[in-house]
């Protein structure tokens, strides 16, 4: 089997080889760019007042089940099997699920901002921007409806300003998750009609637009399933801003080349 593969050949001049199964092994300069993007996003999240957390790369099946992940994205989950472990686990498809697990069955002391970065895994159909494994930085907002909406708006604007500062040609527009057909079509249409998700997209290495970040209002979907309440006892609202770091790297390399991209990222500020 050809593990390092045909897609690598189209991207080799960027030293950014992606295997047929969507596994990336970036070169030295590209690794430096990815690390710089990770640092800058972390600084932006901390400057915005988010509390940073670290989580495992694997997640209990029960948490994904509670989040209706298997119903919404039945083909994306990657199982982890170990004969020495008793539980059923998957590789995390997003870092925010861990935040809901952390807060499960609790009352928030007030409006809450969490941030975390992790390796995430989505076994989506392979193309030049869908990596099976990638790095995601998320900022998760929990609290009142007003707080969550304001944070989502603020992150949308902050990210658009950052993209402009980096000289990235990018578009911000309403979007939907890639739900599968069937009963999840209703979820997708509801998300679309209510404009619960926005994406920032930019041309990637092969020219087509790729999503770099998404800004999501989850209303009470997760908080009701994980019993996260406001002090008055009613379910809190939640939302998140999520950044696919390698995709920022791809878009920046496509538009500026890796060295110029690195300079721009290092010179950008934390957009406090």
């Amino acid at each position, binding site marked *: 089997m050809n593990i390092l593969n045909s897609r690598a050949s189209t991207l080799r001049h960027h030293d950014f080889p992606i295997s047929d199964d969507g596994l990336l092994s970036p070169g030295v300069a590209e690794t430096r760019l990815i690390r710089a993007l990770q640092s800058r996003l972390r600084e932006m999240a901390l400057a915005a007042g988010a509390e940073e957390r670290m989580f495992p790369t694997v997640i209990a099946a029960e948490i994904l089940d509670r989040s209706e992940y298997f119903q919404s994205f039945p083909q994306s989950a990657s199982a982890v099997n170990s004969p020495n472990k008793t539980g059923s686990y998957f590789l995390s498809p997003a870092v925010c699920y861990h935040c809901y697990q952390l807060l499960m069955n609790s009352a928030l002391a007030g409006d809450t901002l969490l941030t975390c970065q992790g390796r995430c895994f989505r076994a989506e159909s392979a193309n030049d921007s869908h990596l099976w494994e990638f790095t995601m930085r998320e900022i998760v907002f929990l609290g009142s409806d007003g707080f969550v909406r304001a944070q989502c708006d603020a992150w949308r604007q902050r990210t658009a300003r950052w993209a402009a500062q980096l000289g990235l040609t990018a578009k911000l527009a309403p979007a939907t998750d890639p739900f599968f057909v069937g009963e999840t079509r209703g979820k997708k*249409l509801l998300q679309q009609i209510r404009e619960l998700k926005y994406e920032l997209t930019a041309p990637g290495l092969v020219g087509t637009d790729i999503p770099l970040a998404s800004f999501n209002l989850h209303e009470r979907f997760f908080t009701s399933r994980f019993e996260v309440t406001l002090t008055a006892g009613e379910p809190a609202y939640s939302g998140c801003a999520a950044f696919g770091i390698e995709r920022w790297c791809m878009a920046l390399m496509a538009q500026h080349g890796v060295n110029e991209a690195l300079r721009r990222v290092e010179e950008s500020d934390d957009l406090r």
Partner: protein
Amino acid sequence: MGSNATGASAPLNPAVEILLKFVNEDLLADSQEKVAPDTLLFDKGRIDSLKILRLIAFLEVRSGQKIPDELIVMDRFRTIETIAKNFPDR
């Protein structure tokens, strides 16, 4: 709840009336709260992922046309009046 909820003085457009009846008596049959022609339909989570599919199926039967997903946006679905205007009966 919109201004027409407790009994409008002006007669309703027949298309609005049919849609209003479907939403209040069928879609929201289990709900205490009913909507008016100008109520923001997608506020307060009253329309869930199954109800939106039933609403679209109803509109497709009335109009005799399939509604493509890209037309299912807030500008066309804000209220019952907006929906009736954008998806006329055949």
